[in-house]
């Protein structure tokens, strides 16, 4: 027997080892949001790195794990390539054929057949038909699918759709990355302005930018603050996470914590130190995504000036709104005046899942937290914040980072910028960030720890124990 649901669908949002139900039904759900099956993808391309760019972008958009990348240059032998493919155990191989590297691609296809004939991974051969033809003969015996050229936007979309289909278990499952994309599109459509969704969960991280017209550019990866925390450290280096910690912690001890967290699903950060670690991991998840996007030549520049940044997942479940704002500002380094909002726990992800099937109300899932003004003053400048309590003028110099708490609707006027920025009531207030871009952290502990601690204290982002 099922419960009547009216017009509201019930959605189960998977966390690491549990589900969070959003909606009126108690007996079951209409949709499930989950990370889906992990997809181990090998990228094979022509002689130049450029042939792999489209494949990398498709892998990022489809949240596929790239376990191996091989270019068709002559630096490795057939046997070495085959052994690398055998060891990588890919479940899917994307071979991008561009027509100019015919013999090199055939060599790669032969290596694939030698290395993986017994495991039979799905092979997607992307490219023009004439470029694909010589490769197909070398892949005899493997399950091959022809795909459009990965260098074109339409081709990439087709590859992303196919890769996502491989990750999906059933018809009622919406992949978390699909849900984030749909939520970004729906928020942009509802506000009529560009929006960014920054999603960090235990297992995956996503950045989705939707332009005012609804076009979505997104990158997703298995980087997270929980089960995928060890990937953040293994890929980016422990020091990149450690640099965000407001207290001195030695590398081995930090690594222990990260590894234990990675094997303990849904663990809760009960102490300020572990909370600070989660925040540090969240920053690096987003920074790694931006770096990967740049490497795959995914244009994400406009995202830094989108008027609205919405934080979801674990990023929106920190106990203080200031913690979410601080992480988002540190990681995304916005460049103009932007509103940062968060979702009610999993509400926007659930709304995004619904929006992927039918129009959905996404705005009710959001709470605006702060208006962030990123400034690069050459000399001291004046910022005026007006709210229900009156107006406050603040003089801002280079390197300043401060919070002006507000009440009710807010108007922000920055010296030198003609028009004022207005916002509805904010949970936190106005954050002035004049630390400069790109945001650089001092390399030495003696300078970095006070700086990171000062920034956290400026917005009241950490419980007292972690700030010491």
């Amino acid at each position: 027997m099922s419960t009547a649901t009216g017009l509201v669908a019930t959605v189960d949002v998977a966390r690491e080892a549990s589900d969070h139900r959003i909606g009126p039904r108690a007996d079951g759900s209409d949709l499930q949001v989950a990370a889906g099956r992990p997809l181990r993808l090998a990228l094979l391309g022509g002689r130049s790195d450029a042939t792999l760019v489209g494949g990398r972008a498709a892998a990022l958009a489809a949240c596929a794990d790239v376990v191996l990348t091989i270019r068709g240059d002559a630096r490795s032998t057939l046997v070495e390539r085959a052994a690398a493919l055998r060891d990588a155990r890919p479940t899917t191989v994307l071979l991008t054929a561009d027509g100019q590297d015919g013999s090199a691609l055939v060599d790669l296809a032969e290596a694939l057949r030698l290395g993986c004939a017994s495991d039979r991974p799905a092979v997607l051969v992307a490219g023009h038909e004439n470029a694909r033809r010589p490769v197909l003969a070398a892949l005899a015996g493997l399950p091959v699918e022809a795909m459009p050229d990965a260098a074109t936007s339409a081709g990439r979309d087709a590859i992303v759709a196919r890769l996502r289909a491989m990750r999906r278990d059933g018809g009622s499952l919406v992949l978390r990355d699909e849900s984030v994309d749909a939520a970004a599109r729906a928020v942009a459509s509802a506000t009529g302005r560009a929006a960014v969704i920054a999603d960090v969960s235990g297992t995956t991280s996503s950045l989705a930018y939707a332009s005012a017209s609804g076009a979505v550019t997104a990158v997703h990866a298995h980087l997270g603050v929980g089960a995928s925390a060890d990937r953040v450290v293994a890929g980016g280096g422990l020091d990149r996470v450690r640099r965000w910690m407001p207290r001195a912690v030695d590398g081995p001890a930090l690594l222990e914590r990260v590894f234990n967290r990675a094997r303990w699903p849904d663990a809760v950060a009960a102490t300020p130190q572990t909370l600070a670690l989660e925040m540090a991991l969240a920053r690096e998840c987003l920074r790694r995504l931006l770096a990967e996007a740049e490497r795959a030549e995914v244009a994400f520049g406009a995202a830094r000036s989108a008027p609205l940044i919405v934080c979801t997942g674990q990023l929106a479940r920190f106990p203080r709104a200031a913690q979410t704002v601080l992480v988002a500002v540190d990681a995304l380094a916005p460049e103009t005046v932007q509103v940062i909002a968060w979702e009610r726990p999993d509400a926007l992800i659930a709304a995004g899942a619904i929006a992927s099937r039918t129009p959905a109300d996404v705005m009710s899932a959001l709470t605006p937290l702060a208006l962030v003004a990123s400034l690069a003053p050459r000399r001291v400048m004046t910022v005026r914040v007006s709210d229900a309590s009156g107006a406050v003028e603040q003089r801002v110099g280079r390197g300043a980072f401060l919070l002006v708490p507000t009440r009710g609707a807010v108007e922000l006027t920055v010296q030198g910028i003609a028009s004022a920025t207005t916002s509805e009531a904010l949970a936190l207030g106005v954050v002035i960030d004049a630390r400069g871009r790109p945001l650089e952290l001092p390399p030495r502990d003696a300078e970095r720890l006070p700086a990171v601690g000062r920034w956290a204290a400026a917005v009241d982002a950490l419980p007292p124990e972690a700030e010491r």
Partner: protein
Amino acid sequence: MSWRYGEWRAAHALPIGVLTRAGEGSEVRAGDIIAHGTTYGTPQRVAAARRLGIAAADLPRVMRVSSGAEVERGTIIARTGRRFARAVSAPIDGRIAHVRADGDLEIAPVVDRWTVRSTLDGRVTRSDEGTIVVEGAAWGLQAVAAYGPDATGDLALAVDGAGDELQPTRVDVRLRGRIIVGGARGAAEAITRAHACGVGAVVAGAVPAGGLRVVFGEDVSARGRSTRADAPTVLCLLGFGAAPLPAAIFGPLAAFAGARAAVHTASARLFVFAAPDAVRAETALPSLALAPDWGSVRVLEGPAVLSAETRFASEITGPAVATPDGAVPAANVRSLAATPIAD
């Protein structure tokens, strides 16, 4: 994560260059060679179908040695015609590593040989060029992560108690070929010494993550790494840092001392080949708790009692479990019976 006697399945990945392998249905014992083969050097490409003037599809029909066969320099590999014969011969000593779709051959010199051994007593249920799967009955213990190559050997205790750290001084060449059991912690020094002394594997409640980086490289992760390289074999039973072993795990380990055992690193499992009634598996299993700083794992003695919603020092509010040391988030407590997360 607790002991269980039953049917287990162990998949053994094979490298390229298989010469012989156990067939499906064959009975094997842990430690038996189930496949052996050769490691290839730089291959030479030899035009075969083109030289013979035949279609690539017809090449297998005229080949005198099969793909994968070892050949000496000058060996006739394929030949056509009678009076006006055309032939393809091997340019080097080696093996026919691969037949290309266009009818060319890749002949590679043999630079090394390898073997793969079973980690289970049982029957081969799948055997192909890439994998051999063995299924059989054993006492098994699922761990959190394993590193290094598979290992087989007799189980030996190298600590006096479940909470002891494995001391390097307790490891010497008399333990060669054994799988040694540490207690709460096996540090990098003990692991490398064990490897140098020829110890088969080190099993411990936890291993320092920093030590794993020292031994296995900077890119090591929490989900283990199965390799074929000459490296130590390490099994982390409960976590990283330190983790005293509960009696439900340490008791059977002590009782199994001297029994044949194997570590299958791909699945992070310890198999012990002993009679089903050799030990009594505990039914009342304790709970494990993640330390407040996440730096270690500890055992909660007695039943875990759920307390009221609690606000922790991090200001996160949630259900908690009451312990003598204070409230622990319920999510940070799990039964020993819980299976570690899949990757």
